[in-house]
């Protein structure tokens, strides 16, 4: 009497397990594809940004270089010491161009492009 309807319960339970598993499997597969596509889209966006930045970089670097050179020259002229002026000019130029190039080439798609992250997963 206690086991009046054991089979319907069991069958319904098994059906439910299969249904939930199917939903999760489909969701996981779809999510995998979506995430892969999203990563690919993100990488494409970053590389296009980096390309645009690289195209602008030489102009920006030259402009910054010229500005700093002019500033250093003006400082030298006002102070009147030639040796210290030339020394500060060279220092300013090297650090200025370095920082500008560094900021422009910063988004080198660090871990997104396979080349940059060889050895990682």
């Amino acid at each position: 009497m206690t086991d009046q309807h054991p089979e319907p319960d069991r069958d319904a339970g098994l059906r439910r397990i299969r249904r939930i598993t199917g939903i999760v499997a489909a969701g996981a597969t779809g999510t995998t594809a979506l995430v892969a596509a999203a990563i690919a889209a993100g990488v494409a966006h970053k590389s296009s940004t980096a390309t645009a930045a690289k195209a602008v970089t030489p102009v920006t670097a030259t402009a910054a270089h010229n500005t700093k050179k002019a500033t250093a020259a003006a400082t030298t002229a006002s102070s009147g010491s030639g040796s210290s002026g030339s020394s500060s000019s060279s220092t300013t130029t090297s650090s200025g161009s370095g920082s500008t190039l560094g900021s422009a080439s910063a988004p080198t798609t660090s871990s997104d492009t396979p080349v940059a992250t060889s050895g990682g997963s």
Partner: protein
Amino acid sequence: MVAVGLVDSKAIWYLMRSSGVVTLALLTGVMVLGSATANRSRLGRAPRFVTAGVHRSIALLAVVFVGIHVVTAVVDPYAMVGVVSVFVPFAGASNALWVGLGALSLDVVVALIISSLLRHRFRPRLWRGIHWLAYLSWPVAFAHSLGMGSDASALWLRAVAGGCAAAVVAAVLWRLKRLEPQPVPVSLEVPA
């Protein structure tokens, strides 16, 4: 031909990363369902064996996705993860720690699955002891996911990782709470 090969290898690289994230989410689900099974909880009105059945089938599904993650890692020419590094923890030359954690987690998951499939051949206490390794497997897999660094700085991965961590912490706390000795209910009714 070279361009096609490059696109294909990039696709493998993206597939490896995405399958890794989905595997972490599936392992989180397995942990939560494992706690629910141990706590004798039901999924809605379904019988209790449904909870255990879903736990088991999602665990097998997670193994499938771990397999995809591992195969793509080995096949991908950029990842350069050797077959030995996949199974032997900390044997790899590059990123040995983080790849090693992934290998360790994989070994534990494989041990859990095999021991569960052959459960009837194990003594219950031994099987339970092996199954407790699941509590080691998840945090190791979690550390591997964040430590590899491919997407660690991405906001979406942090959100996924945070959600997974919150779910597992809640499941473990739920399990620990159920392990505490329950007070015996005292009847206040006076017998007639």
